[in-house]
């Protein structure tokens, strides 16, 4: 008699799932929920009032502006860097490859410190530039510099793999057809990069929106001048204005969710194509 192989039972798994939930609840889910619970406690009018205070308005707008600028500038810089790193062979290429990815590993507070030590009044460049009136620290430009630094690897990381995959024959085909290097990039390389560019830009934008460690040092946390939304939340908390802090936090969280789902949706659709 031939023994029919036993069908492997799918384990019910109630227990391990239970443990997972027990850990995740206080670790991830409850803190997220807390923001919205608190926001709802004072009711919609309180929430709207907290958001429409001029300094909260400024912080949110400033954050969005900086995030847009960061995504735009790093979109160009990161793509260019990825193109050079993936298409050209030159001495020190491997070293450069490491350096441009370094910002992921460096603590953001360290980034803030090092920017101060470069541009600040006693900094390496700053001691010459500040007397000339060039002083990006504690200015919006300083915030932008910090954000560019911190988010640099994200654009690179999503564009470079696509470029590495793209065979050189596509560009070469364009050259033999008569396209110059710029045209080949514009008509052949760039369209192939669309996906990478989009997801890179989203990632950069999201990270810039939430940046705190470097910003708090280089901005000086001056409301109506350099205060981004995360800094506003921090400042309000310290001053005891929990509601004001919480309203902006809820908006930031919502924005992040939207960006995150957009990214997931996009990745899913580009994986299908």
């Amino acid at each position, binding site marked *: 008699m031939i023994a029919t192989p036993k069908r492997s039972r799918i384990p019910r798994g109630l227990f391990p799932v239970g443990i997972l939930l027990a850990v995740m609840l206080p670790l991830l889910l409850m803190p997220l929920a807390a923001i919205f619970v608190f926001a709802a406690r004072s009711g919609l009018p309180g929430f709207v009032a907290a958001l429409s205070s001029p300094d909260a308005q400024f912080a949110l707008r400033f954050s969005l502006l900086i995030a847009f600028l960061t995504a735009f500038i790093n979109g160009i810089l990161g793509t260019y860097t990825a193109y050079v790193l993936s298409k050209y062979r030159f001495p020190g290429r491997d070293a450069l490859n490491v350096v441009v990815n370094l910002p992921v590993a460096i603590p953001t507070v360290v980034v803030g410190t090092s920017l101060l030590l470069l541009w600040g009044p006693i900094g390496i460049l700053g001691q010459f530039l500040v007397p000339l009136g060039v002083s990006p620290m504690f200015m919006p430009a300083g915030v932008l510099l910090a954000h560019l630094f911190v988010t640099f690897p994200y654009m690179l990381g999503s564009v470079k793999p696509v470029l590495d995959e793209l*065979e050189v*024959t596509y560009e070469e085909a*364009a050259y033999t057809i008569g396209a110059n290097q710029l045209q080949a990039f514009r008509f052949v390389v760039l369209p*192939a990069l669309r996906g990478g560019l989009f997801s890179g830009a989203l990632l950069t934008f999201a990270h810039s929106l939430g940046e705190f460690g470097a910003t708090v040092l280089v901005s000086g946390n001056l409301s109506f001048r350099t205060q981004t939304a995360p800094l506003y939340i921090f400042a309000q908390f310290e001053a005891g204005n929990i509601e004001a802090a919480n309203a902006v936090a809820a908006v930031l969280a919502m924005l992040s969710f939207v960006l995150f789902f957009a990214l997931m949706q996009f990745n899913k659709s580009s994986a299908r194509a």
Partner: protein
Amino acid sequence: MSIILTDLTKRFGEHLVVNRVSLDVRDGELFVLLGGSGSGKSTILRMIAGLSTPDAGKIELNGRDVTYLPPQVRGTGFVFQNYSIFRHMTVLQNVEFGLRIRKVKTKERARRAEELLDLVGLGGLGARFASQLSGGQQQRVALARALAYQPAVLLLDEPFGALDVKIRSQLRASLKEIQRQLKVTTILVTHDQEEAFELADRIGVMDAGHLIEVGTSETLYHQPDSEFTATFIGGGNVLVGRREHETIRLGSTTLPLPRAGHLADDGAPVRVLFRPETTLLQAERFAPDAGLHVLGQGVVVERIFAGALQRIVLEVEGLRGVRAVSPRVSYGQKATRVEVIQTAQREPNASFAPGAKLWIGLRDFHVLAPSGLKVLLCASDDEGGRIAAEMGSRLAQATHGPATLLTVVSRPELVAPARTRLEAMRRDLMPRVANLELRVRVGTSATEILLEAQEGHYEVIALGQVPDRNGYRGLGSTARQVLEQAEIPVLLTRSPEGKFENILICTRGGEPGKTDVVFGGRVARRANAQATVLYVQTPQTTDDEQKRAARHLLQAEASLSQQGVQCKLKILDGSIVESILQQAKTDNSDLIIIGAQAPRGRPRLRWQNLANQILGSTDCPVLVVPMNE
């Protein structure tokens, strides 16, 4: 001429991928570059398109020197093996791309693109994307895209390599058709012979960066010049015989020497090619009036059924000792093997069964172009080795022959560093001798040099000589041993510099003296040199010997002029060594050739002493030719 390449050369690092390639492709021609992977064929194509810059040489397209122009302005259409269709563009946009770049009006370029899509058999598929097309269709798009802006030349880099067999043959037919219709000059690169035969107006065969030979499919198949072509294209038997007057000796059989084509020098090796399908097998002797050249009797070793044909391998006893280039000699094989193809019969033909004894007749055979002198350069790790490599490579260069750099080491662990040293040497010598191989052997110098000379079928051994610590200018111990036992001529030299314009051939009267005259003639003819044949009378020379010598000199003159060598005769009285040295001085000789007798009873020592004395008093290189009595 649409495409003219002159001495095109490309290096990747240390590696010479394209080595002085010159080629003319005619207007409207479909030229195929055929070669194995890494033979440099694709690199040539990329250089023509401007995707790669040559290190030396010139590229002309339609009379314009484009060597250093960027690809955009060369007007070439390039089709890649991986199609490289732009994925985010439709088929139509892909085809239009060249016209869009050239700012052709929208209407006009759409019309032209449609036209081309019809031409390549993709009418109506213009709105699709690459992902919606099969590989064959994508390659058709690539072809249409490359043709859209009416390029001066079309370059196809293994265009069918990624396709399956059936699609491939359809595409080949379309390509040929389109190419004929548009009359666009085309170079196609492939490793597939069948493809080359089917498509090409002419084929260029490539190997290791060299363009070996150019010709039509038929010429390359039936009358190739080179051994590489003969064995690379189609299956073939290539045996090396020797020219004996008006015949070719192959073991115990002879073939008539064809009058047309290149003639090997008398006594020089002759490579004979016969194709398996022009060879007949029969149990009885062939009738003398059958018009066949009988190769001899062979025993069937193997029979392989291959559909319409059957392949039969025979061992031929009568060819014992004949060097076979193809089919490759297998380990432990005693007799020479010959491959024959017969049409397969329905009934397994018992007479072709293994073990059967059959007569082999050639309906046709072809003699390959004679190669230059094959020189073995004994490049030991000292000044002498350097001199040998320098001078020997000059000899190989002058005679257009291949050469091998050999060094002998005492222990196996020294092989790797020795090889590195030889590679550096090869780089320096590469411009002189294109076909330069490396060999490192382990053992004692003289023994290994002699073994290598025998195994590799060399024609000359080059040995460098330097004075020893005491300033003694005689022969070294290795040179002595090599001279004593070598079966082939040995070039002994003190100086790395030299040319081969005046050659002094020192001969003895009578039969044995012929060997060095004939060999000297070969060197002189290939190097385009003038020869002086010298005979020295000593007081001991008898009248008979004098008469014989006079006859011998006249014969020498006749046979040298037969070889196309300008020569003069000279008879001197006195001491042999002094006369030779004196004549070498008056003639300004670049090379002295002397004969050495076979070692029976060791009379050769006298000649070795002669070489010794001559080398001791002149810097002119000496070539010692062994004579068989």
